[in-house]
């Protein structure tokens, strides 16, 4: 399907496409109520509560006032509806602001000020410097004579650098005055969300130009929400408007993530629901039998001999209502509240603030903090995640001479400085390639210095290095580049740019020396992409050795090459290139093919090595988390050697002899299978030994393994704790996450760039590093942190506490609901199984909503172990990972406790309030206060650390219970008028309370003490150790130290001083940025993938020959 846009046509296009009204709203005023209610009621819990509330309207069966369910239910609904409405209103306001923004657009041949929402497809829109682009435009004119303009795309992809946009060739040279009279036709694809691609054609109508079709790419567009920078004005034709823009298409709410804890709570809720049904059935049948045998004899009840048809249902339904409190209505609200607070604690945490950029950690998803404590697998990106992604040019090898050594980097190497001074031709060419073979934009600042705006960190490092060696890239004037070399200006004209793609792994520019008029092809790229293209006869061995040597040092390498072009050869090629560029189908593939035709017979100039330092604290963080039982997988686009090197230096795998690396490789299915089977065999053998075994696989073998040997690979994934996957694509990263998820593991994916977005969204928890690569990953992630090392604190402190707290809170919620429910059931046994409620409506509601909710909410401050202890003994995380604190058996414990407490309360109350005291209202309050007393002590016993707030909440709540009931008892209109005063005056009331507390808590305390002392859990031991303090804690420290020692003697370790953690990584075969740039998230990706496979095989062939 194609879209035809008639430029500046006021009549035709209006009705076909939507206008530029942006709407992010989920609701309108009219559909809000039904739609919101519908959404809320699609949840099982809400349906259940609604059913209960509706049943309660039938006064024949309701045990209590319907308000006791309707009140909380409406409250819960109102709260979440209000939240939705508020969010939607804010969206509306921001939409409205964007929609009503004034823009200049051409209407009927005249430039007019109109609102952004009135732009239609085909309109010509004018922008001034620093204006926001209101819709997707195809550029047709700029203030720049070369037709260039600069845009900042931060809002779109999070990248902060400036990007160059150029007007299509057909529009070159149109007069400013004529621009708003331009007519023409743009053929473009239907709206999609790929912000990297736009394959369209433009044809201007006479009188402007001939009927030539002019290709349009993403470079000719201005996308919605970008900003125009460094350009006086620009104008363009609207092609996509409103919600059909590239940005609009990418909008969407991701699927809500469900934590393991939530799933467990749901499961337990289901179990309780079944239990409830059983109770209801049993009591219902018993009630009916009792009614028929006994109750008919009770003349004072006056049971009619013949009831209505539904008579049999009445008693079971009554019990259903009576037992409906078994499922606590408050649990959802309480959990939402505390989860919000967990997230806030993460946001507030001072210890997770990146001091360099002062970015605090942020929890974008407030609902999944518990999962952090249950992580079993961490899948991590390498560049920018483990490393700093701050590139520094370190060494180089120019035509066989190595520059730079351990003492200083190449820039300070006197030999190199001398070589530059003597104008050694190889060195000069090398520097020229460094300076201009790129897409860097230099910006002159007021103080004379030059700021480089680069898309890739590598390029920036190279340009800076060249500048350091007096080859300064000063100005970019359209296609003309000014190089300042030793005070003389050299000008080059860029004729073509053969762009970088992750498949080509190299980029080239064709430049013309303005003085001599000679044409050059300058290339740079990964060794395997450049070296095979070397001119026949040139020895590439030195270079591959240099690459090898630099990789060993952990540096990223780039090969630089050049070739002089013949005029004829270039002209011929240029035509093909143009044609390929205007192809509508398979454009990428065809361009790659055409590029290959030029990139041959290169003269290799040398190898540049760039350092990307490991971030602070990465080895320690990984070591700690590995001790905590978390398995690490490294997924990187980098090559095998580099990945292994980095893995070793950051404790990913232990060095020999403790660790063992198993390689899986192979080019064909059979090779991969054999290799895989061999590795599996070794794994099975070694799995019993305490050995650190990791497998290494590259993207190619992974592709085969996943496709043809899925089962074997799955087993491998289960067996191995560590894996290094190199040269993997973003979609493979996501596939691996999916694989681990299918094995029922909790996965956490951490990354920093756009190529990690899919993995981050796929994993149970996505963590983004809000680093130098822009915010794309951080935006898509559930949590964003400034540095990798904060992951330790995020998991061990926040994740663990959140899990512990939620585990207690949820089970406690069931405990207190079951407690009151069991009492109701017991009471029904002595009230003729007729379904009488012992408690009045107000008390029941207050019990659930207030008395038992407030103390437990303060549990969010509870800390079983101090942060320090957890950091020292990360193994303790095992309790969270294995779900030791919330599972059916712990739940059974709480269930038993509530049953026991119900028996205690009930038996004591009916015996001490027997005979003349057995008044309904009084007994009800005695039982209720017994429950309140017990629950205060239960919370107190289960609290590990008491802060002032906890004391206030627990004991204050007990006091509040009395105060509230005194107030209610003072109101004559209430059912329990004077009851509480009467009770509090009776000594036997207080005696009963204390008896309940001691009888209820005594056994619990004794059991807990017994377990604590004689069957202690690790947590208990650490708590005790923590209390005793000092020397014991240090025991835990011995081990990591000894391991650190081992590492230094290992043969594989790098001879750099450890304190700097200077682990280098050889150059990623693809520039990390560029690969990120080439994939937009979402659907069009797959389409792109299918193509890239084709071309990747071609890249391999190229490498092999």
């Amino acid at each position: 399907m194609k879209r035809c846009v008639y430029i500046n046509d006021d009549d035709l296009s209006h009705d076909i496409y939507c206008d530029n009204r942006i709407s992010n709203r989920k609701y309108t005023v009219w559909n809000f109520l039904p739609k919101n209610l519908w959404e809320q009621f699609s949840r099982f819990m809400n349906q259940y509560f609604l059913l209960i509330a509706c049943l309660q309207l039938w006064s024949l069966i309701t045990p209590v006032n319907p308000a006791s369910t309707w009140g909380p239910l409406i409250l819960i609904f109102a709260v979440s509806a209000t939240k939705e409405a508020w969010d939607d209103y804010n969206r509306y306001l921001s939409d409205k602001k964007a929609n009503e923004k004034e823009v200049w657009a051409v209407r009927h041949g005249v430039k007019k000020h109109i609102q952004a929402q009135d732009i239609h497809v085909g309109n010509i829109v004018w922008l001034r410097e620093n204006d926001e682009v209101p819709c997707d435009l195809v550029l047709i004119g700029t203030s720049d004579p070369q037709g260039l303009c600069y845009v900042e795309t931060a809002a779109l992809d999070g990248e902060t650098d400036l990007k160059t946009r150029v007007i299509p060739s057909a529009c070159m040279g149109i007069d400013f005055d004529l621009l708003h009279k331009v007519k023409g036709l743009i053929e473009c694809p239907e709206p999609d969300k790929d912000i990297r691609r736009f394959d369209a054609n433009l044809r201007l109508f006479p009188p402007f130009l001939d009927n030539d079709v002019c290709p349009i790419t993403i470079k000719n567009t201005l996308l919605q929400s970008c900003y125009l920078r460094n350009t006086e004005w620009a104008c363009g034709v609207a092609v996509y408007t409103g919600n059909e823009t590239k940005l609009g298409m990418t909008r969407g709410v991701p699927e809500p993530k469900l934590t393991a804890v939530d799933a467990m709570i749901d499961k337990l809720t289901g179990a309780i629901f079944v239990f409830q049904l059983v109770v209801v059935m049993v009591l219902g049948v018993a009630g009916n039998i009792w009614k028929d045998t006994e109750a008919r004899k009770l003349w004072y009840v006056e049971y009619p001999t013949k009831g209505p048809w539904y008579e049999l249902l009445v008693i079971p339904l009554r019990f259903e209502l009576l037992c409906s409190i078994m499922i606590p209505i408050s649990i959802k609200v309480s959990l939402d509240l505390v989860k919000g607070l967990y997230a806030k604690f993460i946001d507030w945490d001072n210890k997770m603030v990146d001091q360099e950029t002062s970015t605090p950690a942020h929890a974008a998803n407030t609902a999944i903090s518990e999962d952090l404590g249950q992580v079993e697998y961490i899948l991590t990106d390498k560049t920018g995640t483990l490393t700093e992604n701050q590139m520094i040019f370190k060494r180089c090898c120019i035509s066989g001479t190595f520059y730079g050594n351990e003492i200083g980097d190449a820039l300070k190497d006197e030999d190199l400085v001398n070589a530059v001074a003597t104008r050694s031709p190889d060195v000069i060419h090398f520097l020229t390639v460094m300076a201009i073979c790129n897409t860097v934009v230099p910006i002159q600042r007021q103080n004379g210095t030059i700021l480089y705006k680069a898309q890739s960190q590598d390029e920036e490092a190279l340009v800076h290095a060249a500048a350091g060696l007096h080859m300064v890239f000063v100005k970019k004037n359209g296609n003309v580049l000014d190089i300042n070399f030793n005070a003389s200006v050299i000008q080059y004209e860029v004729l073509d740019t053969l762009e970088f793609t992750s498949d080509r792994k190299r980029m080239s520019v064709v430049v013309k020396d303005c003085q001599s008029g000679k044409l050059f092809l300058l290339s740079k790229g990964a060794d395997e992409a450049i070296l095979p293209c070397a001119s026949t006869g040139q020895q590439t061995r030195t270079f591959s050795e240099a690459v090898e040597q630099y990789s060993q040092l952990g540096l990223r390498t780039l090969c630089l090459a050049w070739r002089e072009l013949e005029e004829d050869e270039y002209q011929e090629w240029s035509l093909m290139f143009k044609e390929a560029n205007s192809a509508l189908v398979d454009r990428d593939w065809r361009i790659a093919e055409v590029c290959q035709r030029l990139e041959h017979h290169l003269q290799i100039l040398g190898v540049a090595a760039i350092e990307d330092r490991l971030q602070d604290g990465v080895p320690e963080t990984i070591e700690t988390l590995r001790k905590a039982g978390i398995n690490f997988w490294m997924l990187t686009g980098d090559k095998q050697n580099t990945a292994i090197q980095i893995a070793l230096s950051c404790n990913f795998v232990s060095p020999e002899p403790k660790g063992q690396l198993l390689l899986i490789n192979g080019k064909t299915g059979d090779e991969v299978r054999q290799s895989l089977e061999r590795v599996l065999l070794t794994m099975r053998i070694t799995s019993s030994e305490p050995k650190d075994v990791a497998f290494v696989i590259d993207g190619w073998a992974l592709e085969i393994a996943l496709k043809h040997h899925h089962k074997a690979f799955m087993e491998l994934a289960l067996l191995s704790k560590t894996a290094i996957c190199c040269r993997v694509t973003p979609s493979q990263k996501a596939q691996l996450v999916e694989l681990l998820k299918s094995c029922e593991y909790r996965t956490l994916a951490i990354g920093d760039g756009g190529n990690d977005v899919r993995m981050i969204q796929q994993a149970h928890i996505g963590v983004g590093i809000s680093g130098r690569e822009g915010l794309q990953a951080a935006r898509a992630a559930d949590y964003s942190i400034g540095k990798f090392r904060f992951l330790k604190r995020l998991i061990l402190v926040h994740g663990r506490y959140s899990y512990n707290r939620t585990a207690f809170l949820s089970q406690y919620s069931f405990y207190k609901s079951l407690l009151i429910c069991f009492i109701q059931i017991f009471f029904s046994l002595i009230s003729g199984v007729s379904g009488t409620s012992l408690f009045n409506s107000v008390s029941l509601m207050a019990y659930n909503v207030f008395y038992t909710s407030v103390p437990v909410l303060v549990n969010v401050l509870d800390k079983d172990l101090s942060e320090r202890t957890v950091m020292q003994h990360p193994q303790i995380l095992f309790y969270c990972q294995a779900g030791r604190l919330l599972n059916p058996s712990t739940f059974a414990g709480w269930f038993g406790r509530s049953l026991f407490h119900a028996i205690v309360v009930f038996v004591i109350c009916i015996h001490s309030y027997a005979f003349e005291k057995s008044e309904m209202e009084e007994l009800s309050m005695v039982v209720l206060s017994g429950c309140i007393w017990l629950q205060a002590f239960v919370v107190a016993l289960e609290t590990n650390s008491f802060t002032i707030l906890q004391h206030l909440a627990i004991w204050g709540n007990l006091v509040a219970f009395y105060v509230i009931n005194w107030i209610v008892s003072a109101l004559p209109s209430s059912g329990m008028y004077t009851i509480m005063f009467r009770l509090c005056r009776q000594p036997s009331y207080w005696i009963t309370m204390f008896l309940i507390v001691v009888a209820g808590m005594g056994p619990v305390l004794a059991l807990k003490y017994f377990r604590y002392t004689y069957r202690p859990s690790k947590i208990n031991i650490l708590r005790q150790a923590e209390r005793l303090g000092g020397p014991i804690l240090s025991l835990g420290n011995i081990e990591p130290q000894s391991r650190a020692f081992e590492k230094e003697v290992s043969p594989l370790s790098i001879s750099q001083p450890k304190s700097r953690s200077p682990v280098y990584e050889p150059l990623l075969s693809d520039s990390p940025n560029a690969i990120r740039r080439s994939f937009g998230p979402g659907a069009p990706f797959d389409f792109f993938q299918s193509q890239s496979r084709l071309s990747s095989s071609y890249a391999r062939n190229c490498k092999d020959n």
Partner: protein
Amino acid sequence: MSSGEGSSQPSSKKSRQPKYSRFTQQELPACKPILTPGLVVTTFILVGVIFIPIGLLSLSASERVVEIVDRYDEDCIPSDQEKTAFIQSDKTNKTCVRSLTVPKKMQHPVYIYYQLDNFYQNHRRYVKSRSDKQLRNPENEDLTSPCEPEARIDNKPIVPCGLVAWSLFNDTYGFSVRGMNLSVNKKDIAWDSDKNYKFGSKVYPKNFQQGSLIGGGKLDEKIPLSEQEDLLVWMRTAALPSFRKLYGRIEQDLEANEKITVVIQNNYNAYAFGGKKKLVLSTTTWIGGKNNFLGLGYITIGGLCLFNATTFIVMYLIKPRPCGDPSYLSWNRNPPGN
């Protein structure tokens, strides 16, 4: 090599950073109690030491209560007659004379209760069948909807309506000692709150017990509800199927071994459903009537606490367990990774 948090700790105040407070950093000062043997044993001993005396005190208070319980439902019916038919008949003479012996001196006031066993005043159908609004205010006499099936008669509202009022207990007792009538004080047997608020002083019984089916006692239509204290007592529904309700007080001491003659009008039908009727005379102490449960409970629980404490001490002596020994941590015993 102090890791992440070490290096970021020192300077923690910058503009964009979260505000530092002990709450936001989860660093509120906290006390972390630990279940040490000392603490637990002390707690149990302390509880035991406090509970046993309280138990003894309660038990002795309960023992001081003098109580006479006389079950009369069986004996007050001629054995040759069908019980339900006898009690339902208008013509039978239901007077019954019982003789009670005072076991110990009973100090005034001596409370007179009637006890009903196996009477489900807490049955849902029963407990709901009343209209508190009607009882309170004469204007609400038509609010009888909850009172079914005793709501209206010939479409006129019954006041007081409902099963509770309708089944009003109507046995009466007359007491005499040595031939002298003992006066029974039936004033102030109901709760003050009921008299003053719950039952209106302007609400008079209407159409009560006029139906074909007569439940229990009848009410004097000239006396407002708030002064019908028997009704008030009855309408304080009992939570248990076995309950006592106050009938009146004898305002004089009863000497030990005195014979009390009770003349009972055995009107109330407890035979139909196998209920028991008992007459109870009882004194009272601070703990209330005779009820050994609390005292025994306290002594038992207190004893168990002491027993627990001893067990824990013995266990501690036999098998001392060093507290917080990290050698119990499995990962300190086994190599890591397992």
